[in-house]
């Protein structure tokens, strides 16, 4: 991964180089999809991710009631209870699968909301500049200064803690990061020759934005989106671990919270929910990395 860029004097960007980022070469979308989906890591982690998602969606329909306390308590994993039972005698497999629903739902919703807002605000700011741009930069700075988790905790504590609010809060803390990437891309593309000629031809700014800027900004935005999903899942589980979450629909983090008193006695209780978080986040991060490599090709380039 050799990148032949030298920073121009006076414009040292303090933003660390993202892994694999280099001079952008226009690539055929078909060849990208082909190389991407054939990579072994993509096939492996993609499958894992799909399995986890399916398990969370369909699993709860197949297993028992996660709230029923009729089973014997503190059963270690067995054939009858693949993930054991918890302190109240509930089937842990059912609880974990339902928890997956919540965790994944929140993760993907946050990312979707985040990216939508980021595309709009970042795209407009980067393309048009001006006041909107300055505002975006300042807002970005604000969210960098106050750590997201802290802000989310305070907001959740004050405003209540159902799923919708948590999704909104997390999206609010995460969108400036993605918006910055969108803005940088929009600024770069807005300077390209063919955009100028479109403007000269009379196309409206919004139309150019929609038909040309956004599609070309997609590669880094896609990568950022996958990373956002991973971060959102981690953030939500952190919040629910600390007790901020919907009590009626415990996510994986909430399960971990409830398992805390039992780490010495019932090892399966803290193990499985966390393991699920790890597997899903790992799969998403690996896919994101593979996506990054596919979209930013950088083999040993020779001068």
């Amino acid at each position, binding site marked *: 991964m*050799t990148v032949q860029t*030298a*920073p121009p*004097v*006076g414009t040292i960007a303090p933003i660390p180089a993202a892994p694999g980022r280099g001079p952008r070469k226009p690539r055929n979308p078909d060849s990208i999809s082909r190389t991407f989906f054939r990579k072994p890591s993509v096939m492996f982690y993609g499958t894992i991710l799909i399995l986890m998602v399916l398990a969370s969606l369909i699993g709860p329909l197949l297993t028992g009631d996660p709230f029923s306390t009729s089973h014997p308590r503190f059963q270690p994993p067995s054939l009858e209870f693949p993930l054991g039972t918890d302190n109240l005698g509930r089937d842990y497999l059912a609880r974990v699968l339902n928890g997956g629903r919540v965790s994944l739902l929140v993760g993907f919703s946050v990312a979707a909301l985040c990216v939508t807002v980021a595309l709009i605000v970042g795209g407009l700011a980067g393309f048009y500049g001006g006041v909107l741009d300055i505002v975006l930069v300042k807002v970005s700075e604000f969210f960098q200064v106050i750590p997201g988790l802290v802000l989310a905790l305070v907001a959740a504590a004050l405003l209540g803690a159902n799923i919708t609010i948590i999704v909104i809060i997390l999206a609010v803390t995460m969108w400036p990061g993605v918006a910055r990437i969108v803005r940088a891309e929009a600024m770069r593309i807005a300077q390209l020759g063919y955009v100028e000629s479109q403007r000269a031809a009379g196309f409206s700014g919004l139309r150019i934005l929609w038909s040309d800027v956004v599609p070309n900004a997609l590669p880094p935005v896609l990568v950022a989106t996958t990373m956002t999903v991973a971060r959102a899942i981690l953030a939500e589980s952190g919040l629910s671990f600390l007790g901020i979450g919907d009590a009626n629909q415990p996510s994986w983090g909430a399960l971990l919270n409830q398992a805390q008193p039992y780490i010495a006695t019932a090892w399966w209780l803290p193990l499985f929910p966390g393991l699920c978080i790890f597997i899903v986040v790992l799969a998403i991060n690996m896919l994101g990395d593979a996506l990054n490599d596919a979209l930013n*090709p950088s*083999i*040993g*380039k*020779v*001068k």
Partner: protein
Amino acid sequence: MTTATPTVPDERVAADAGGPGGSSGPLLRVSDLAVSLPTGPRRDIQAVRSVSLQVDRGERIGIVGESGSGKSVTGRAIAGLLPPNPRVRVAGSIRIDAQEMIGAPAKAWERIRSHAVGMIFQDPLTFLNPVMKIGSQVRESIHPDRRSGRNAGKDPAVLEVLELAGLTDVAALAQRFPHELSGGMRQRVLIAIAIAKRPDLIIADEPTTALDATVQRHVLATLDETVSRMDTSLILISHDLAVVASMTDRIYVMYGGRVVESGATGDVLKNPRHLYTQSLLRSVRSLTDEHTPLWSIPPELRREIDALVGRPDDKEADSDS
């Protein structure tokens, strides 16, 4: 491809079966050099197909060609500065002072580069370490025995070399960083770095391309002067015929990874024999001569030249050559 055991570089052993040079043999002899470079996950390109050239002591040669002709790659191969990518393949023979360098271990190359061969690169901004002072960067090039003092800024050897390269106020300059200097000054620093090791051969790869026209002339003059003064051999690589014409004794014209014509500079430029050289000169003349309309090599002519040179379709990777 021959692999001789490396000789100790301090003994300038006379070359055996040498070329038509003087009694001590050519300083550099390149035979049938071929270099293949990776350009994609599974693609390679033959940047250099077959190049043979020779440089005697004190001689100045030029390598001219358009971009893609392989001239830069040739220069780098001679200095052993091709990318360390394992997919890069080099074949043929490069003999520096009768020592075969292809296949030589890294230590042998290091010794050659620290004593015998210096290189001047194209873009002085990116080729200087931005966080290191000028003085320190020059000092690294000087043999440890000839350094004195602890501070590069006060080392007379460093200051001397900077002055030789045409710089002024060198004591202050040595304390500065590359971004504080102008383009011409930076290029002179690169010259200083190259001559600091008192090399036998300097390879200059497009040394003035990144500079303004007026600065170009000054820097070239400096290069000319220092090379003469130190009696160093010079390989000047450029696409600019004018630059090469004024500074070299002999010239090699490259196209498509091969040498298509070579000879004394004046001869080649006045009476070009190869179709490509003729076309090249014609297009250059059309630029400078007001009475001639602008002319560049048309596609049919180019195809004819390609056929002459034996240049295959680049999509295949040549496996040997």
